[in-house]
């Protein structure tokens, strides 16, 4: 029996950007699912990849590491990566890891897709 993904990660397309919407907690167990979806998004060579974290209520360092990997793909492929929708709890871990200035972080999906 195929193992079910530990979290749902929906993908949508808006104005040439691919928006990745993980839903739930992103720890060691869940991060590989997000990693796979982000890779699929970059593989499609969109104008931009947006990670919408509005429905992520918890993230630990495997989630951060996944986003750092995505940033490396972004730099290599010249497809911008924008992160949006961070709640205070998730933003806190970016700040503890001093990664909040490394990523392009904006408020919501509309702002992330624009530009």
């Amino acid at each position, binding site marked *: 029996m195929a193992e079910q993904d530990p979290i749902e990660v929906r993908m949508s397309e808006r104005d040439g950007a691919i928006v990745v919407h993980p839903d739930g907690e992103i*720890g060691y167990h869940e991060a590989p699912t997000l990693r796979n979806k982000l890779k699929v998004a970059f593989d499609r060579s969109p104008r931009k990849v947006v990670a919408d974290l509005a429905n992520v209520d918890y993230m*630990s*360092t495997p989630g*951060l590491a996944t986003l*750092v990997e995505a940033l490396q793909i972004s730099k290599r492929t010249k497809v911008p990566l924008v992160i949006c929708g961070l709640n205070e709890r998730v933003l*806190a*871990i970016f700040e*503890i*890891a001093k990664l909040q200035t490394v990523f392009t972080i904006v408020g919501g999906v509309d702002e992330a897709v624009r530009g």
Partner: protein
Amino acid sequence: MTGQSDVLAEVSLGGRQPDLRLELVSNPVYLCGARELVAQISRRLGFDEHASSQIALALDEALANVIRHGYESREDGRIWVSFFPLAGQNASAAGIEIVVEDEARQVDPLKIKGRDLEDIRPGGLGVHIIREVMDEVRYEKRGERGMRLTMIKRHTPGAGNG
């Protein structure tokens, strides 16, 4: 029946009896349950939402490190998590001590350190996060096999319970 692993765990805690002890296998599917449990306990011990989240994050990072680096992603290793409320005044806890023990690969405690944050790359952040959010963090070898991580979080005097 008490197995050899249980005896080892009791000896390594110096005979202290924790208020609560969780035993789990090194399967990441159980991490969400462990962090929910510690967040709830922390709230009951008087920590506010922010501090309880930090304590849960520290335990999550600690367990993930044991699974990934200690057991090298094997899912059949044993992990014990022991909880000790720190004695405070008027029957209220002054904080919490959490001890994470395993039977995994031993490493020199002096070599366990978070990576340089200037080096932007995936991985190696867990130890940094644990040291950042907890008040005391101590790694040591646990007898002939396994490691023990002791983490303490105290209530902050004069700053509520965060």
